């Protein structure tokens, strides 16, 4: 952490670091949504019949649904006919066989983002799948993962190379008609990542996907599916950025996780979509459905998220604890500054016996942002010995922001133990005084305190990303103090 004095005025005006756009040849479908668009997307990807039917069914169901309005967020009505549902870098037409064939401009983009696609990837020891607008651009370390039997590829490739796995698991955790945005995603999703860890395999490296929206007026609808077979283990990280535009863009992703007996999935997100300017102009609407199912005994799913970007965040990574002794975890830091709106939290559904869940949520609000934690802990009648612990803390920086907590607790089993605690506070003047007295600037003092506030969550992130997350937090809150 730098200890140089900052010019607050300058910091406030500091721009979104990832706001550049890349000028490359793109193939974009004209805006609009109908069955022909869906057929076109499916045809472009050369999908088998079952995929097209699944998409069309989702689309027809979506038409009957209403956009949800219960979240503590406000935005003008989205015109779904004004969005383009497919944008792909042209060079994809003759699919690159290796990194060398990838459009150098794209590589440059990822360089700017700090995504090590090349040699640096090896040093970082992370396999990366990069998704640019609608399509997956490249996946690194394929061979090495292949040796271990791990499948890590773009969703499109999975549909071609492993259709039996896709057909078996797709939509089994988040059904096509689950909710408004999930149904939309099912109809038009263009790519995403697919991970399959075979029985007994401990994935030899961290897996990572980087999402980037580049084109204007497009929506990004990716879909991630992770299957951890019996006794396997995987740690997966996704990151996201978008260029700075003064129009809102829609991102409606779906993530499905399946953990079988004794398997463990650790899913981490660093979300840094463009949040809009300080007046709330532009920015990404991040409407995401993430859900994991602990199907097997002793399985474990752990969500860690650092939510720093997006104009609006609407996401509730959830765990359905079906298997006996299964464990669900949710660690979250959500930061809102300026006009950002966040309604996020988790659902822990206890079905199996002796299932445990932990929820640690840290919300930070600054500027005129509103930050809501919304969570459900449900213990069904058969979930003997279920246990949940929830801690939600909110930190308010400034008197024009809001911090809200809406926890739903539903218990039907008399042997369950459910605890929820929440606090709301601001940074104490005495804390700032103490640090300033030791020669630390106010800005840095606030950063330190905020980092301390989030420590429990950062501790859950893979090390490289914990460092990145801390830096991101500092950038997000710049200008919030002073």
């Amino acid at each position: 952490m730098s200890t140089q004095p900052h010019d607050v005025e300058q910091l406030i005006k500091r721009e979104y670091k990832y706001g550049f756009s890349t000028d490359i040849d793109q193939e974009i479908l004209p805006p609009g949504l109908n069955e022909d668009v869906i057929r076109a997307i499916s045809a472009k990807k050369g999908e088998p019949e079952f995929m097209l039917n699944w998409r069309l069914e989702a689309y027809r169901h979506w038409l009957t649904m209403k956009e949800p309005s219960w979240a503590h967020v406000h935005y003008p009505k989205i015109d779904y006919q004004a969005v383009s549902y497919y944008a792909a870098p042209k060079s994809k037409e003759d699919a690159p066989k290796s990194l060398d064939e990838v459009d150098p401009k794209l590589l440059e983009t990822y360089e700017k983002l700090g995504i090590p696609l090349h040699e640096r990837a090896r040093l970082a020891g992370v396999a990366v799948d990069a998704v640019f607008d609608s399509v997956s651009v490249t996946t690194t370390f394929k061979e090495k993962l292949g040796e271990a039997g791990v499948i890590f590829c773009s969703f499109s490739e999975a549909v071609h190379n492993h259709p039996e796995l896709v057909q078996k698991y797709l939509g089994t955790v988040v059904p096509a008609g689950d909710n408004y945005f999930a149904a939309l995603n099912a109809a038009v999703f263009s790519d995403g990542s697919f991970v399959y860890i075979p029985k007994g395999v401990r994935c030899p490296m961290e897996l990572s996907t980087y999402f980037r929206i580049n084109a204007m007026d497009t929506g990004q609808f990716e879909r991630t599916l992770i299957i951890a077979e019996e006794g396997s283990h995987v740690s997966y990280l996704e990151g996201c950025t978008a260029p700075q535009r003064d129009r809102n863009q829609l991102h409606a992703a779906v993530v499905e996780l399946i953990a079988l007996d004794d398997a463990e999935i650790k899913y981490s997100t660093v979300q840094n979509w463009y949040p809009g300017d300080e007046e709330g102009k532009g920015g990404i609407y991040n409407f995401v459905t993430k859900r994991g199912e602990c199907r097997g005994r002793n399985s474990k799913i752990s969500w860690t998220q650092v939510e720093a970007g997006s104009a609006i965040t609407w996401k509730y990574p959830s765990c359905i604890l079906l298997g006996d002794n299964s464990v669900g975890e949710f660690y979250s830091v959500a930061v809102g500054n300026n006009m950002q709106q966040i309604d996020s939290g988790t659902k822990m559904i206890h079905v199996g016996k002796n299932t445990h869940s932990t929820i640690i949520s840290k919300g930070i609000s600054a500027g005129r942002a509103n930050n809501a934690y919304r969570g459900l802990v449900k213990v069904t009648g058969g979930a003997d010995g279920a246990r949940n612990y929830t801690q939600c803390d909110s930190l308010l920086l400034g008197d024009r922001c809001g911090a809200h907590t809406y926890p739903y607790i539903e218990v039907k089993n008399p042997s369950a133990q459910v605890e929820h605690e929440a606090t709301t506070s601001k940074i104490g003047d005495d804390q700032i005084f103490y640090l300033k007295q030791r020669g630390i600037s106010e800005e840095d003092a606030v950063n330190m305190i905020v980092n301390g506030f989030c420590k429990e969550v950062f501790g859950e992130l893979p090390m490289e990303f914990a460092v990145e997350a801390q830096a991101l937090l500092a950038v997000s809150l710049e200008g919030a103090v002073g």
Partner: protein
Amino acid sequence: MSANALSQHYAEQVQHLQQSLPGSLPDWLAGRRDGAARRFADAGFPDPRMEEWKYTNVRPIATKPFGEAPVDTGVSAADVSALGFQGLDAYRMVFVNGRLRTDLSDLNGLPDGATVQGLGDAISHDPAPLEPILGTLAHDRFSSFTALNMAFMNDGALVRLARNVRLDRPVHLLMIGTAGNAASWSHPRILIHAGEGAEATVIEHYADIAGAQGFTNTVTELRAEAGAQVRHYLLQDHADGAYHVGSVFIQQRRDSRVISHNVNLGGRLVRHDLNVDLTEPGAEIVLDGLFLAGGRQHVDTHTRVHHSSPNTTSRERYRGIGQGHGRGVFKGRVLVERGAQKTDAQQHSANLLLSPNAEIDTKPELEIYADDVKCAHGATVGQLDTTSLYYLRSRGIGEQEAREMLVFAFADEVLERMDLPPVRESIEARLAARLPGGQAFETGA
């Protein structure tokens, strides 16, 4: 009854009501009643798709063609003393099926500046002073039940204290239900207005003759002026077949203090809404609550504390017990408005779930728009602490007895804070009687 037939029924009820009202009803009141009747006709009963009614389905109420409860002259002084509190020295008003019975009431010795009066009486003789309070805290828009009460209320109690008047004894409002016919309703309205620096204790108490199964829909409006201190007991001990919806609206001015004790023991389907607005600095509210949901009971309590001014304090402690096939619901909302700095809000919901067929749903909410505040909430759902159980067992106390002791102790922590020993002891005895020694505890193990 079909929805159509039912709306026809209510239209007739409203018409019938308008014909039966005294001709002297002042315009403002006639207007408010009329507006409420129309609002109810438009909105109908709430359904579980509405967030505020997510856990409580009022179908059992909404599908019955209710009408006014019959006049019952059968209730005697002996019934009153059996249902009341032994040894409580109080000003007493007794209502039977929502109608004041002056013959059973005792208001002798009220100090100067204190008005304790039947609301029906006040409306017919001197309605003007009611205008600034009746229907001003409880908006028809709040819920269909509030509108329904405004449209159909014809009696209740008025407690009004002039500046610096201190009531030496509590006011005991004993509401007795006798209607064995499930389609009888009553809509009592309680108005409490404590002037500057005034002090009072008001006990709103619902109890039934065994077998009663009517529907009581009450609205209470309580305004505490600057420096006033009010204790409000809301004790619901209906017969097991009764329906009860109670909506309480409390508005507090500078440095006033209100303590609310809300105990729910009886009833088949019970819903309470307690709404508190702390409108000026220094106002403080204490919300203490206990609910017991056993048998086939459904007991729902919603509280909303609105910190709309700086330097206001709230303390909320609710406890719930689910046993048998009961379902207990608690939702507590704390709203801190922009600018309400130095708010100090604490809220806690603790629940015991003792049976595999019972359910507890709890939702403590914080909505905060000011930064210099201290707000915390907590909620737990669980069973008896095994360490405490072990401790008692190791001292030679039988398992069942030890469990009973612990359940009672859990509930009694709320009752202990009551300042009227005769009320506390009586409620404790009624609570103990409703904690069936045997089956609930065994299955809860």
